[in-house]
């Protein structure tokens, strides 16, 4: 973050999509922690750089190119038109030319050309092909961990070339030769072992949920349950584990519970599937992604539920919506009248439309709200049965639950949304510099809507976004709790049948404080 953004001038218009001045190499040293042998081996990867890394990497590249049509076509098709060059939030925020999507792809493409194309084999200089060396491997590591796989570049490319796919392939090759990233791989190991990213054992989870039930009873006078491992419930809720332990996520979870309660639904969480996130996608590993997904299928079978609903989480929803049926389907044992899986927003919005849940909007009058489209939801999934439902449904819910809603600038929302800066396996403290710079387009757009409409809060439906914004917002003079769950707005305003009038000033401090830095690990 530059010095002047630290003292924000609230009256100044900031161009959110402005590209920082190009400074070659300015981010070239940023190297997030590499995975330790034990993290690697749990996922079936070698513990450190193997001796024959060169041949192994090239073999893996050939393997991936033959298994993924997208990768092959993307590598061949780019015409270097530069249409994507200024579309990446990391490029805009850092000015490092290698954070331009096409340049990021070229780090990989140059090697592909050298080993797999006629032109690159015989005329490498002419077409910008190069040998794979250890320096190149390091460069891959650094810059493919400066991509949040947000797909913004893919929207603007005339051929839909998706740099995210290339980042995933590069990370998979790095893992295969023993050079994985600590943050992602450690977390995937925890999911395989304990069922969630936080490494939360089931006793702790149960105790936490019981605390929430007490709080809810105190607040509403109603017995609102957060059931765990209840066989025969209708709905299995799979939600990011941050929802159990970190603000502002928890308030969203309480919102889901109230919605289920008011709808009279029987639902349950699962200890073995106590995590919606699937970091297997970030490292491009079909096998790991599949293994993490099968855990959810197994939980659904064991509990005998009829439906699966996902809580608020961006890339989790991408894997759930786009890949779950492929990875862990078919889901014939579920009630096929409902889509498998469903998003909690689809569920809530349906109840609102059918007048089953109602709101007292005035409860949210202290909030002047905007909404951050999480890019994985926006550009890699859908809600409802119409294209674009992923934009309308969360907004409709917010507008149903509060009186003051304002969108940010058109070219920073919906399919053009700019990433929070922390997605794709980058939500780790060792990448904080990048995270702050990458957040700047979104934060500028947010500052503008504050100036224009006095917006005080922003809602999001992604655990990563929420954790990331909680970290970067103070740099732009927003309170740390200016980022909210959509279902927190629902929770505040929902009218619960038979509820006692909530005590005024019912302050949030009664909710157990977030586990130290729990936010940073999900």
């Amino acid at each position: 973050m530059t010095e002047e953004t630290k003292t924000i001038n609230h009256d100044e218009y900031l161009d959110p999509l402005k590209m920082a001045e190009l400074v070659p190499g300015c981010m070239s040293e940023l190297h997030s922690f590499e995975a330790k042998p034990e993290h690697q081996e749990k996922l079936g990867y070698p513990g450190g750089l193997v001796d024959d890394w060169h041949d192994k990497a090239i073999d893996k590249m050939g393997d991936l190119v033959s298994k993924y049509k997208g990768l092959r076509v993307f590598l061949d098709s780019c015409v270097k038109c530069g249409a994507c060059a200024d579309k990446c939030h990391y490029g805009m925020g850092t000015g490092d030319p290698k954070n331009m999507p096409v340049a990021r792809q070229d780090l990989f493409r140059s090697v592909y050309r050298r080993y797999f194309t006629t032109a690159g084999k015989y005329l490498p200089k002419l077409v910008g092909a190069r040998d794979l060396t250890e320096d190149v491997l390091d460069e891959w590591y650094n810059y493919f961990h400066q991509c949040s796989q947000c797909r913004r570049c893919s929207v603007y490319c005339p051929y839909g070339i998706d740099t995210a796919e290339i980042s995933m392939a590069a990370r998979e090759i790095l893992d295969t030769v023993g050079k994985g990233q600590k943050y992602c791989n450690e977390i995937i190991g925890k999911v395989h072992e304990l069922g969630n990213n936080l490494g939360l054992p089931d006793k702790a989870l149960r105790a936490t949920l019981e605390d929430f039930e007490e709080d809810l009873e105190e607040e509403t006078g109603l017995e609102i349950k957060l059931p765990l491992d209840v066989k025969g419930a209708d709905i299995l809720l799979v939600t990011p584990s941050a929802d159990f332990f970190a603000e502002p996520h928890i308030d969203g979870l309480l919102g889901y519970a109230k919605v289920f309660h008011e709808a009279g639904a029987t639902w349950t969480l699962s200890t073995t599937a106590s995590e919606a996130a699937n970091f297997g996608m970030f490292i491009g590993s079909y096998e790991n992604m599949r293994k993490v997904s099968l855990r959810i299928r197994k939980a659904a079978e064991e509990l005998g539920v009829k439906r699966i609903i996902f809580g608020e989480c961006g890339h989790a929803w991408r894997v759930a919506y786009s890949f779950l049926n492929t990875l862990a389907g078919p889901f014939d044992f579920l009630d096929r009248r409902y889509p498998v899986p469903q998003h909690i927003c689809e569920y809530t919005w349906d109840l609102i439309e059918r007048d089953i849940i109602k709101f007292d909007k005035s409860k949210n009058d202290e909030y002047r709200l905007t909404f951050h489209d999480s890019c994985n939801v926006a550009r890699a999934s859908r809600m409802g049965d119409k294209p674009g439902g992923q934009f309308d449904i969360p907004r409709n819910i917010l507008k149903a639950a509060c009186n003051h809603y304002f969108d940010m600038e058109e070219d920073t929302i919906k399919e053009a949304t700019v990433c929070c800066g922390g997605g794709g396996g980058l939500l780790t403290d060792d990448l904080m510099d990048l995270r702050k710079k990458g957040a700047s387009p979104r934060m500028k757009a947010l500052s503008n809507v504050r100036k224009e409409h006095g917006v005080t809060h922003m809602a999001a439906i992604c655990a990563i976004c929420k954790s990331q914004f909680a970290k970067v917002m103070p740099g732009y003079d927003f309170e740390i709790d200016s980022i909210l769950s959509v279902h927190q707005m629902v929770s505040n305003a929902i009218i619960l049948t038979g509820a006692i009038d909530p005590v005024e000033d019912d302050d949030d401090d009664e909710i157990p404080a977030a586990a130290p830095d729990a936010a940073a690990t999900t």
Partner: protein
Amino acid sequence: MLTIFYAVLFYVATLTFVGGLALRIYQYATTPAPLKIPTTPGPTTRTGVVFRMFREVAFFESLFKSNKWIWVFSALFHAGLLLVVLRHLRYFTQPVWFWVELIQPIGIYAGFAMLIGLIGLFIRRIVVAMVRYISSPSDYLMLLLLIFIGISGAMMKFVSPVDVVAVKQFFLGLMVFDWKPLPSDFPLLVHLSLVALLMIIFPFSKLLHAPGIFFSPTRYQVDNPREKRHIVAWAADLEK
């Protein structure tokens, strides 16, 4: 001698172009796409995908969203190129098809549009720092190749006209393996050599974007993963 050289050159070029492109298309068509990755919001039906693809190919929809300058130059170039290529059909058909006859006059303006577009793209590549950074020598050379094809073509039209009837005889002859003499005007020889070169490098270069766009999963896939299970052979094998 000259005739034989160019006859052989065009056979080789045509074979490389058709064979190379067919091989590429076969490769793209048979490489599996294990996951559903359409860029959303996207069409939820096959028909919708046909419309999306049509908008991309005919109007460069995504490029329009992205950058108006590239779009203008690119549209001038590609539309120009398309018309120019169609106009050239008159050298390969006897009698000339009715609609090819019809577009002859437009073809000349199309040639200029193409050149303006190409020169615009070339200047952009040099002037805009971001684009300069991502350019390899081949990216400049590709544009120069097309520019010189255009200029040598225009020379024959406006500066030193060639005997087009003889040229036509040459190409009609090539198609039935009955070689007729090729005129030896310099602009013509340059023009034909560069076109043959273009055909030869086509399947080995970024010009693969032309078939590539039809095989780009982010654009051709239907957004219906929940409704219909998508699974490819190698992924299904993991389930055994």
